[in-house]
């Protein structure tokens, strides 16, 4: 048994391709050249899996599989032996989320201004929706891409689960190796997982046009698939549904783009009995408790935000502290998962530059991730998540021979991968590293001298020591070596030598300064003592705090409920006792306990209310803050299935801004671009809490309807969406409720339709309407439609011509929620008048003043006061329009809207008369928790300034340290607008959008 010399390995590698097959199954243009693919890797440190490391071990590989591994394994005679002394062998990494070998996704250039595409463009017996593509088996579309494979092998990967990440239901991924071979051989498993997302990708179809639409579509798809199992004749053959059902046994992977989408995906899974594996966004550390509660396993990216060029302070003031904090904290994400004991795999997916994979991984380790966990997350965990542990993920006999040979522990800074073996074939990565020249040599160049070579391959330092010391330039390509140094005789002349290294000596020829040739030999007397390479075990990097919510006004700990005793204030009770002077309010366990004079409670914190006014928290009947992913599902005229509840954004700074204006609860509505919009959500602004905790518990559900210019899309002449007139609007309504009634009559086994189920709730008085409406004709019409179907339109919102039909509204039993004084910006508000609220109220309608505007919401008390000015309304009645009246119309007046014992402690302490322009909220209290405090806010501002400055200085240091930077750009959250055409966004960016060259709008 002759030991195979490493020198020949490079040659071997070149011949290995297609060497595995015992029997050739395809024609070859040569004589047969069968190979056994039998190798023994000896004397290596074999890291079998993250938990098992074998010293001086042997790994036997045959026919692309691992045959044996251990410390006392007999070396087969017919195996090629590869000496791996000092080297480390690891199972090659497994990427559970890759698009290797797939075509790039073509982005859809969907525009809501373009003509509608109501149905899928995909030809064939598939889903009606172009983004539902469960039928796609990505193994069929896989093509080996050696250039990409090489990139990934370089990083240590041997197998990836791959698909084209396109659409909402994306089909099945395949496990492929990164071998250079025919696809037939490279695909290790045809189907590894079924994939999902909220993004419609290349779909050119309109629906869904929002995140909440994506959620609804996924839910409906589950129901449809269930129904399809009964082979309904109405559906015929639907391969999308069929394959969705077939794929149910596979791991289900859901890819998300932000942390809250994790919870959204998981919630859908919970509803339909599926535990998704989440492909995360990298922000999960910001809500690690919520992540843990999903019980999901995660696939985490290692893409970290780039350093920003922070040199211009006037630009940087527009970059959120949240963005800076994420830059700092993103590398802590994997460590946060480890600490929380959540199962996770790591992926190279999402890296702009794949070469940043190992540096970023090392960074994650530096930020607290253990090496063992890192390795597990790249080997056993992804294999287990994909159900392919029998194939990959460790170095156990029988598994695919995917492993790499490294010069040291793989995560150590100085380590490098020498070769990556995939399916039993070796691929050079840095084969120079096989040859370590370092050591002391005896060399004879006319006279004896010492040649000392120090350092690592690629960065040697060499010198020639005789009577004096001469620096030597050394270059190496595998075993070939060139030396160059100054001639002793004439320093300006160089001696140049060429030689070959055989493992213990270098010998060859060279040319002296004179031009004469000389033979030479350098014999290594002593190999360099290699410092054993270690991973840096520095203290974890010091970083800032995660704050809740994750923005400039978040805090390390969320504000807590207190017992409070507000004393000596003017208390606007909204109850029979009216306005109480010099009165006290006692709050315990989130409830108002007592209102009166001279109250005492030792458990309560005293709040001096002298000179202040206390009112119930302001309730905004019509708002669009705190929601994300689009407030409108515009794509169809009836979208009752979509729910604002699915898209609550607890990080929205506008929630805090609302609190600064005394708003404690807001009704978050779908927009108004279609007749039957989406289900709404009443929130309580429990600042810092997650979406579920922000929701107003146990309230009657509502839905948004809309009439008039927006729903008929008056501004858009090219869109064919029905209806185009108010005549058509009335028919959309009539048709929808007729369909719902007919649906109700259908027997068991019917297809559950989320849209019709929702409409039925309205008919059955379990869900209530708030309807965007302006002119008297349309108001009258919807009341008649409701009368015909036997339900009441709960609320007419905007209702700027309500004063014209207030008597009819009263007779019907509708509430009114309106603006104080908006008018004339479009045709249907020409007759809007600031006395509208007062007239409706005088006629006997319950009236609220709403905002529909994140800025104005902060002044709703003053908006209400305009009815005093324009129509002489009483002060108490005016205040009720933004407190008790909206509570009534939202069916929550039993809990909020007035100051009475037993009610929720949602209170505002005002600096001045609450209807005055000079009034400021000094404290805003929700459920007995002070969620906004004007004095604390000043401190928060100061802390924000300090934190931001710290991060900016850190970025400067990062840039000076050589980190690449990107130019700064303002972080902007688009204001959600109710309407598509009437843009009352008062943000700076919207106002100056047209001042940007080449672009009309910052966002569509």
């Amino acid at each position, binding site marked *: 048994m002759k030991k195979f010399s490493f020198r020949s390995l490079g040659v071997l590698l070149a011949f290995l391709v297609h060497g595995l097959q015992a029997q050739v199954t395809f024609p070859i243009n040569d004589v047969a050249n069968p190979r056994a693919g039998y190798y023994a890797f000896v004397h290596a440190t074999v890291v079998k899996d993250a938990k098992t490391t074998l010293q001086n071990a042997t790994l036997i590989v045959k026919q692309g599989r691992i045959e044996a591994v251990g410390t006392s394994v007999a070396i087969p005679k017919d195996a090629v032996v590869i000496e791996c002394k000092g080297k480390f062998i690891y199972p090659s990494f497994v990427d559970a989320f890759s698009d290797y070998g797939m075509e790039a996704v073509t982005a859809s250039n969907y525009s809501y201004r373009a003509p509608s595409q109501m149905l899928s463009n995909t030809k064939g017996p598939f889903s009606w929706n172009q983004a539902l593509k469960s039928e796609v088996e990505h193994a069929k579309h896989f093509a080996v891409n050696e250039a990409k494979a090489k990139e990934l092998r370089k990083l240590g990967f041997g197998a990836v689960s791959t698909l084209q990440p396109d659409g909402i239901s994306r089909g099945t991924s395949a496990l492929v190796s990164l071998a250079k071979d025919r696809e037939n051989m490279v695909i290790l498993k045809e189907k590894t997982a079924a994939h999902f997302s909220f993004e419609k990708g290349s779909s050119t179809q309109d629906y869904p046009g929002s995140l909440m639409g994506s959620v609804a579509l996924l839910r409906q798809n589950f129901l449809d698939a269930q129904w399809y199992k009964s082979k309904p004749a109405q559906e015929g053959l639907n391969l999308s549904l069929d394959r969705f059902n077939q794929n149910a046994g596979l791991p289900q992977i859901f890819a998300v783009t932000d942390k809250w989408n994790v919870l959204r995906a998981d919630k859908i899974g919970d509803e339909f009995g599926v535990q998704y594996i989440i492909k995360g966004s990298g922000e999960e550390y910001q809500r690690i408790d919520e992540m843990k509660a999903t019980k999901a396993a995660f696939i985490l990216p290692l893409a970290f935000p780039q350093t920003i060029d922070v040199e211009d302070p006037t630009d940087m003031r*527009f970059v959120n502290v949240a963005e800076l904090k994420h830059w700092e904290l993103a590398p802590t994400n994997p460590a946060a998962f480890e600490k929380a004991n959540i199962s996770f795999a790591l992926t190279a997916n999402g890296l702009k530059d794949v070469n940043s994979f190992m540096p970023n991984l090392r960074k994650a380790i530096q930020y607290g991730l253990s090496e063992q966990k890192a390795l597990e997350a790249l080997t056993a965990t992804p294999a287990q998540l994909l159900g392919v542990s029998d194939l990959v993920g460790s170095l156990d006999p029988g598994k695919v021979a995917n492993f790499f040979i490294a010069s040291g522990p793989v995560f150590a800074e100085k380590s490098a991968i020498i070769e990556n073996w995939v399916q039993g074939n070796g691929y050079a990565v840095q084969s120079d590293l096989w040859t370590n020249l370092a050591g002391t040599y005896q060399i004879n160049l006319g006279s004896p001298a010492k040649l000392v070579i120090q350092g690592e391959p690629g960065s040697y330092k060499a010198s020639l020591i005789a009577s004096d010391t001469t620096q030597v330039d050394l270059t190496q390509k595998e075993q070939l070596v060139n030396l160059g140094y100054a001639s002793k005789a004439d320093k300006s002349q160089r001696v140049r030598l060429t030689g070959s290294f055989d493992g213990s000596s270098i010998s060859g020829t060279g040319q002296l300064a004179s031009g004469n040739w000389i033979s030479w030999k350098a014999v290594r007397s002593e190999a360099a003592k290699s410092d054993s390479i270690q991973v840096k075990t520095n203290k974890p990097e010091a970083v800032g705090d995660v704050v809740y919510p994750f923005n400039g006004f978040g805090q390390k700990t969320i504000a807590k409920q207190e017992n409070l005793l507000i004393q000596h204030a003017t208390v606007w009770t909204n109850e029979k006792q009216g306005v109480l002077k010099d009165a006290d309010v006692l709050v315990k366990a989130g409830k108002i306990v007592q209102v009166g004079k001279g109250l005492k409670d030792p458990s309560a914190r005293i709040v001096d209310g002298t000179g202040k006014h206390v009112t119930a928290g302001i309730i905004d009947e019509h708002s669009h803050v705190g929601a994300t992913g689009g407030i409108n599902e515009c794509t169809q005229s009836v979208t009752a299935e979509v729910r604002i509840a699915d898209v609550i954004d607890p990080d929205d700074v506008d929630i805090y801004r609302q609190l600064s204006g005394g708003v404690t609860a807001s009704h978050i509505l779908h927009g108004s671009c279609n007749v039957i919009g989406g289900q709404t959500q009443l929130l309580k602004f429990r600042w810092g809490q997650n979406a579920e905790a922000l929701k107003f518990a146990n309230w009657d559900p509502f839905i948004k309807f809309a009439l008039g210019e927006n729903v008929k899309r008056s501004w858009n002449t090219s869109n064919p969406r029905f209806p185009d007139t108010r005549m058509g609007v009335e028919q959309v309504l009539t048709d929808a409720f007729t369909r719902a009634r007919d649906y109700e009559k259908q027997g068991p086994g019917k297809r559950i339709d989320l849209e019709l189920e929702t409409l039925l709730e309205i008919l059955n008085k379990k869900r209530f309407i708030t309807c965007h409406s302006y002119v008297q004709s349309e108001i009258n019409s919807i009341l008649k439609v409701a009368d015909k179907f036997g339900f009441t339109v709960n609320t007419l919102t905007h209702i700027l011509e309500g004063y014209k039909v207030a008597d009819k509204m009263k007779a019907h039993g509708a509430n009114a929620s309106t603006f104080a004084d908006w008018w004339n910006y479009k045709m249907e508000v020409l007759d809007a008048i600031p*006395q509208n609220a007062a007239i409706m109220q005088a*006629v006997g309608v319950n009236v609220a003043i709403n905002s529909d505007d994140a800025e104005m919401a902060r002044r709703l008390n003053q908006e209400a006061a305009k009815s005093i000015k324009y129509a002489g309304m009483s002060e108490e009645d005016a205040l009720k329009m933004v407190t008790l009246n909206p509570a009534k119309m939202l069916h929550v007046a039993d809990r909020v809207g007035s100051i009475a014992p037993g009610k929720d402690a949602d209170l505002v302490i005002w600096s001045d008369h609450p209807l005055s322009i*000079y009034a400021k909220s000094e404290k805003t209290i929700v459920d007995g928790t002070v969620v906004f405090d004007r004095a604390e806010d000043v401190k928060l501002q100061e802390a924000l300034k300090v934190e931001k400055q710290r991060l900016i200085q850190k970025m400067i240091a990062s840039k000076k340290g050589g980190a690449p930077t990107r*130019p700064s750009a303002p972080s902007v959250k688009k204001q959600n607008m109710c309407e598509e055409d009437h843009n009352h966004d008062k943000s700076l960016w919207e*106002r100056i959008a047209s001042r940007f060259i080449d672009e009309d709008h*910052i966002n569509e």
Partner: protein
Amino acid sequence: MKKLLIPIFCFLGLSLMAQETMHPSPAQAKKIVITGATLHIGNGQVISNGTVSIDKGKLTILSTAPAISAEVEHIDATGKHIYPGVIAPNTNLGLVEVSSTKSTVDFDELGEMNPNIRSIVAYNTDSKVINTLRTNGVLLAQIVPQGGLISGSSTVVQLDAWNWEDAAYALDNGVHMTFPALINRPNGGGGRRGGDSDAVKAGLERIETARVFFREAKAYLNEKSHAAVNLKFEATKGLFDRSKSLYVHCDLVKEMLTAIDFAKEFNFKLVIAGGTDSWMIADILAANQVAVILHEPHALPAAEDDAVDQPYKTGAQLQKAGVLFTICQDSGDGYTQIRNLPFLAGTMAAYGLTREEALSAITLNPAKILGIADRTGSLENGKDANIVICQGDLLDMKSSVVTHAFIQGRAVDLNNKHTQLYNRYKYKYNL
């Protein structure tokens, strides 16, 4: 019987004052004396129980009430407040009726260099919006064109006129520029769209074209006669002799610094309109005597990390630094909201200004900035009688009810489309 009469009376009243029959008032005939009111002079001064006399459209402030004769119209304003008429700078009032309906939009002209475009020629004195402003005490407005880099010339109008010639109060006395944004485009809506191109460089290059324009205009104006008349250059004349101001519409620090340099090169009188971030360079603005027409304070903070009340307190910060400033309603459908200008001032008073400073910010300050302070903006002898009598605090909607308004001594009809529709439906519901 009584019940029956009231509706009939209302109905008659209604038909008499339908908007189409409302008309500007004739010139002041009789001398008017208003007594007993608290006078808010507009310069910070307050006189309680003061007397205002109006003769031939001009004001006199009297220390003691004169004898009231039959030739004099006497208004007892005991318990009420008198203010200078509010001035609304930087509006497109009368240039647009319904902003979503393009055929009614007349403020945004095509072209890059349009100093020759004059807003006044398109100003519609019959816009339904105008009367609603007077009802809240807004009596004068600056009518501003938009579009291009040099947008055109503005005129100050009084709000009680038959036609634009009647309305003109200070004709063509401002030239407006809209600076490009000197900041990278924001990252909007999830996708990274900003930071890819150098927006600052592109913006500066565009501004440079305006410098070239004005350099050429200056040279052109040095010579009186020309073979070919350049209307655009001719329209810039007043800028060079400082009879007109240059209004640069911009908001961010780099834009304002650039505007200051721009104005210096040509020795223009500079006013910044917008000025969202003016509080950051208030000292520089004060040192350069640059006035600011502040974007409406009822706005969300420009930056997410800004104090939640930053736009409310910007005025106080400018005041403290000694910057001459006023406020406007310039966003989106701002023209329909100009009647809220006094309440915007009220908000600034809640956030750092005194109430009288806040009043100045919408009366005397805009008069100074618009170059009409010699005629209006305060209750001072000899000025035009552009005044408002209010039952309560003009700046606070809780008590503000304007009972009288005078423009150049003419008693203004305080009805408007809204009061008329209100009456119509009070009739319907018997309220």
